């Protein structure tokens, strides 16, 4: 069963990958992506980033994205953990990890899950900057990245 979690606290990448692997000797590859808070966005300094989501829909949307990845690639399982609440630069935001027999499937499915998450999962970012707070605008490049699949 895929692990899908939305949480305020940090995640332990090694522990999550261990849990994803288990003792399954069919697994020959685990690909993982970790998204982090940067200290600059659109040339403006960011002191904190506050993430909100839509409880009830978020987990369902993430599980649906993992299911879609499973229909497209021969992967065994996936872990998606997304943080919400107030974060600061260098904090981890999101972990996506995928297990499969071979690296090609794991890499592709991991990138797909991230691209779909960025355009379909109900999360929103608000930045604190020297000029005040601002909501992050969606990027056309994210839509283009998701449309590739």
């Amino acid at each position, binding site marked *: 069963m895929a692990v899908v979690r939305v949480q305020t606290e940090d995640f332990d990448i090694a522990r999550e990958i261990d849990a994803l692997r288990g003792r399954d000797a069919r697994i020959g590859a685990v690909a993982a992506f970790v998204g982090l808070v940067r200290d600059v966005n659109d040339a403006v300094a960011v002191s904190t980033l506050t993430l909100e989501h839509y409880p009830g829909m978020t987990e369902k949307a993430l599980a649906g994205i993992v299911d879609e990845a499973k229909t497209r690639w021969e992967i065994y399982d996936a872990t998606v953990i997304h943080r919400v609440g107030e974060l600061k630069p260098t904090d981890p*935001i999101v972990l996506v990890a995928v297990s499969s027999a071979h690296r090609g499937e794991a890499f592709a499915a991991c990138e797909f899950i991230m691209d779909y998450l960025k355009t379909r999962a109900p999360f929103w970012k608000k930045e604190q900057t020297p000029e005040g707070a601002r909501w992050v605008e969606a990027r056309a490049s994210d839509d283009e990245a998701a449309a590739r699949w």
Partner: protein
Amino acid sequence: MITLVYLARLRESLGVPSEVVELPSGIGNVASLLAWLRARGGAWASELAPGRAVRVAVNFAVAESDTPIRAGDEIALFPPVTGG
């Protein structure tokens, strides 16, 4: 009754996180609901104006303008998502 939920920037600009309203007669889908909300004027008219990027979920699933709305539904309105 239907539950309306406003998220992120929309919650702030409309000034309300959620509301429970009687399903207005003649409101059968997302497009007609948006038109009804716009008729409130002010921020409702400007934030939900045609051409503004407003996303809608009905019962926690992404909806389109022709997605049906029925009594008991939870309808969320929000800007394009920016997670990850």
